[in-house]
């Protein structure tokens, strides 16, 4: 099968970026968005065509989907075996990601024509969206880990540019800076991990790295460093990079602040695509994790579980609707990460891997929908805070219905897609580690609670006084909402167990009631509590938060992670380390150099008296010297 054309999927948005970017003050807004949407539509069509071609017409070998290199070229040669290539790798997960990215990106492109209308820098926005789409497509089709790093950085910078879109707003500037630096910090570990993997296995190529019977996986188990093999260390370092992008603890602090960006950006980058890059990275290298470094996989599982719990708890107390959604994203990504951590390689053991990808897919759709819905709400009431909302179901009927669908989906109510994907994750956790299973079960309940808190608070509850009567969104915004709502319905019935598995072979799945019943029950309880507390205005929420006292305060302040980071960076690194380096440089290193100059000058000053020009003085010195030497000879001092 020929997949060479897949290289065009990232390249078309790149051209669109260049065209809009160079001509941004020449093009009208309509033309600029038209170019962006056309480019994305092309990528969208090609992605779906690729998915069709790959899953339905490509021949399976031994019952398994094969990994196919669509296109590959050497970009930067380090040594004979180590080189950065640029190309496309077509396999189940990359095809799935192409579908996810192109769908959400196209919807966001369409949605933004309405949402961003009349904004200053509308064209800039579209050029950045194209840049992001290019980078993200490039990331998901990477044929080697260094290509992934290249695009990893590029999505990072696109995210930076888009978060800081309102660049005259100090909070947006600070948020974009924070996002970039925190992820960059994590990327540093990623880079070290890549270099180490390259050193151990002598290849960056994904096919060579992840071949279960290949030589790369077999290597690196032997050398020990602090009790773990170097391969384990390298994979943990790589996972740290993934954790940075995917906002896992302790690198999560940038994600809530990233909500300073325009809402369509939050939907695209900070909910559906870029933030799941970490999940995708681990999935991409999964055979290596599973076979040569099970310890690293254990770390992955716990980081995911703890992050999902942490984020769900924090989400229950936030008032900014985008921030609630941000923490919810973090929590759901925690699910996906955990699912990978508890997965095995083959057969039913591999259900975690399948579930993780499944959840990634469904989550992308319903979370993008939630964000776009939130955008429509914000567009209508000009505020992010849920205290300033209420009773909106009357004014925004379409937004209300689609938002409700998405909320039910994330809460795991059958038969919406979230139920199926979450259920598979819980099954995987149940068979691997009961502790993680119970954490995830509890998180499922919390998720239902905080999402319905949000829903009731915005669409029901007491109606505040609105300055203008809120209006539902224009068609350009409604269409993406309805399209994604449809996806939230359908996605649950896609046969992921046949399509996306570690070894490419289909696996059997069946509903395990011991998991499905408590999960649904927890979800319903969460919804019920939220309904009691928030459907009408009551005093219960205040009482409960008062009852939790300190714990509520800690939660509300996100357990002071930001403050700790601020302290370390500003107080310690900037003020102590950096200032002392600057001081040291001026007052020790430079002062020494100046000192040498001064000493030279001073000594010249001192001895210049000798050059008096007086013959008597010279004669005196000459004769004294001669006498001293003569005495020395006489006394035999030289022997």
């Amino acid at each position, binding site marked *: 099968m020929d997949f060479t054309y897949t290289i065009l999927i990232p390249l078309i948005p790149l051209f669109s970026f260049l065209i809009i970017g160079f001509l941004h003050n020449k093009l009208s807004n309509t033309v600029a968005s038209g170019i962006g949407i056309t480019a994305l539509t092309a990528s969208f069509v090609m992605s779906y065509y690729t998915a069709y071609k790959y899953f339905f017409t490509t021949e399976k070998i031994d019952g398994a989907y094969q990994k196919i290199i669509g296109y590959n070229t*050497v*970009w*930067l*040669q*380090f*040594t004979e075996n*180590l080189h*950065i290539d640029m190309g496309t790798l077509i396999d189940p997960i990359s095809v799935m990601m192409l579908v996810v990215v192109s769908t959400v990106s196209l919807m966001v492109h369409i949605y933004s024509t309405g949402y961003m209308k009349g904004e200053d820098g509308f064209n800039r926005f579209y050029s950045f969206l194209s840049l992001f789409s290019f980078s993200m497509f490039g990331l998901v089709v990477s044929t080697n880990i*260094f290509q992934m*790093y*290249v*695009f990893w*950085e*590029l999505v990072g*910078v696109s995210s930076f540019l888009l978060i*800081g879109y309102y*660049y*005259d*707003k*100090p909070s947006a*500037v*600070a948020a974009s*800076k924070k996002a*970039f*630096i925190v992820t*960059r*910090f994590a*990327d*540093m570990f990623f*880079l*070290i991990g890549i*270099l*180490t993997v*390259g*050193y151990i296995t002598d290849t960056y190529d994904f096919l060579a790295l992840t071949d279960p019977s290949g030589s790369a996986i077999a290597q690196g188990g032997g050398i020990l460093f602090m009790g773990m093999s170097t391969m384990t260390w390298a994979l943990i370092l790589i996972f740290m990079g993934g954790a940075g992008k995917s906002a896992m603890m302790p690198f999560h602090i940038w994600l809530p602040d990233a909500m300073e960006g325009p809402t369509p950006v939050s939907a695209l980058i900070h909910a559906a695509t870029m933030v799941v890059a970490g999940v995708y990275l681990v999935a991409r290298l999964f055979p290596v994790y599973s076979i040569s470094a099970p310890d690293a996989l254990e770390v992955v599982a716990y980081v995911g579980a703890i992050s999902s719990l942490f984020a769900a708890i924090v989400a229950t107390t936030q008032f900014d609707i985008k921030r609630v959604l941000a923490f919810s994203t973090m929590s759901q990504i925690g699910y996906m990460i955990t699912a990978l951590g508890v997965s095995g390689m083959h057969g039913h053991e591999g259900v975690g891997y399948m579930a993780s990808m499944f959840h990634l897919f469904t989550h992308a759709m319903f979370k993008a929908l939630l964000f776009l819905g939130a955008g429509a709400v914000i567009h209508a009431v000009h505020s992010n805070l849920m205290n300033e909302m209420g009773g909106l179901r009357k004014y925004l009927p379409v937004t209300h219905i689609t938002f409700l669908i998405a909320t039910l989906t994330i809460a795991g109510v059958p038969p919406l897609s979230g139920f199926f994907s979450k259920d598979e994750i819980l099954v995987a956790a149940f068979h691997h580690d009961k502790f993680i299973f119970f954490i995830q079960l509890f998180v499922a309940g919390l998720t239902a609670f905080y999402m319905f808190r949000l829903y009731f608070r915005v669409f029901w509850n007491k109606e505040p006084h609105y300055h203008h009567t809120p209006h539902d969104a224009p068609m350009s915004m409604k269409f993406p909402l309805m399209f994604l709502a449809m996806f939230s319905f359908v996605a649950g019935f896609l046969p992921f167990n046949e399509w996306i598995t570690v070894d490419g072979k289909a696996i059997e799945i069946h509903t395990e009631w011991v998991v499905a019943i408590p999960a649904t029950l927890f979800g319903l309880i969460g919804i019920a509590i939220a309904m009691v507390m928030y459907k009408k205005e009551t005093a219960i929420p205040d009482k409960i938060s008062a009852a939790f006292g300190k714990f509520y305060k800690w939660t509300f302040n996100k357990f002071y992670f930001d403050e700790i980071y601020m302290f370390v*960076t500003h107080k310690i*690194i*900037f*003020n102590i*380390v*950096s*200032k002392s*380096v*600057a001081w040291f*440089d001026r007052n020790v*290193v*430079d002062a*020494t*150099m*100046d000192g040498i*100059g001064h000493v030279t000058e001073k000594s010249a000053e001192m001895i210049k008296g000798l050059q008096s020009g007086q013959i008597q003085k010279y004669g005196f010195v000459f004769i004294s010297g001669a006498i001293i030497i003569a005495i020395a000879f006489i006394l035999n001092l030289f022997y």
Partner: protein
Amino acid sequence: MNILSLLVLVPVLTVAAILLAKDNKQTRLYSAVGMSIQLILSGILVYMYIQERNAGNTELMLFVKDYVWFESLNIHYAVGVDGIAVAMIALTSVIIFTGIFASWEVFNLHREFFISLIVLSTGVFGFFISLDLFTMFLFYEVAVIPMYLLIGIWGSGKKEYSAMKLTLMLMAGSALLLVGLLGIYMHSAPEGAPLTMNIMEIAKYDIPVEVQRFLFPFTFIGFGILGALFPFHTWSPDGHASAPTAVSMLHAGVLMKLGGYGAFRIAMFLLPEAANEQAWFFLLLTGGSVVYGALGAIKQKDLKYINAYSSVSHCGLILFGILMITKTAITGAIIQMISHGIMTALFFALIGMIYGRTHTRMIHEMGGLMKVIPFLGVAYVIGGLASLGLPGLSGFVAEMMIFAGSFEHADTFHRVLTIFAITAIVITAVYILRVVGILLLGPVKNKHFFELKDAKWWERLPLITLIAAIAFIGIAPFWIIELIDESLVPLMDKLLSIQ
């Protein structure tokens, strides 16, 4: 006439033309024409070089010309280039070309300024084409001396102090270097054979190891001072802060590269055993200065100081890569020379343009400039992104090659040190984004800024040229690698044969 000698001749003729110029307008016109010819000439050189190589010429040095100059000491005017030198010449001609336009607006003693600037560039071109130690040293001095005048006369702030400091420290470097070069000359041939200054001739003979051990520190530090080797880098912040725009561009962009280039071409190539033995010590110094420079930049308040410290960090990485002695790392180091040269020239040009508008270089006195001068703002952001190593721009390629090359070493020392140096990529991001945030983003700080005009054509031209070069190297690094790759082989063979 030999194309290489033309490269020296054109600047000299330009200076002569400027002397005849009637007014300032003619002066800058002649300068611009002369340096445009120089740019075209170096383009032709690149083309001729590639043609020659494709035609199967495997000589180490191409376009060689050799005239006896001073017979009793066997000093020749010997010129010739390999791919590395060609790349450096191309870099120099780009920087001097853009530097002329960055000094377009008329100021005091305009003519004298251009003369000094072009004389300086003559020295740099001469340095890169020389194959004779003496000629090379001569050109080196020709490049350093005008710097004193350029900073002392046209500088700002504590200009006399800075000019004096810079010149004296570089002279101290020259003194060390002279010891090293004379030492090499004295041992350049086996007993009885005539001594030679020709680098290629010396390379054929292995200088005794004891001698190498003694000479290597002199030569390496001598060049290293110019390449901002810690702790001899302190001339750089003061010097850059006081220097006028074009001088900063040329100095950080090209002159500092003379250090790295010389350290590699002379110190390492002619003294390979000592280089292998003593590399660890200098690796510690340079690896340290990569992080040290970056940390030093975080809290600076003056734009030029920030860029000067950033240069300490980036130039540290050049020497770091060279000292790794693997082909990948050295290739990376050479690309880093070019990349940093262009990047830092871009920064200094921008700083000059911003200063010309706001009359301050203190970042806290500025803010929101993106809104009022978007062209300069975007150019600054692109430069910043290149500096922090964004893929698709030149810095990434250079850094990755150096890091990956360093990881080829099997021992822990090199890899641990590399990991230490890698932390600089985060620190760089911190100080770059801090500056961008304070300087360009946020609300417009001063209402006078609303009257500022965006870049004029003579400002856009150099900026676009430099940005195009950054993007070109970043997107298609393979061309430049191909240019230098073949030339590295003999150099590497000599260095690696010892290990």
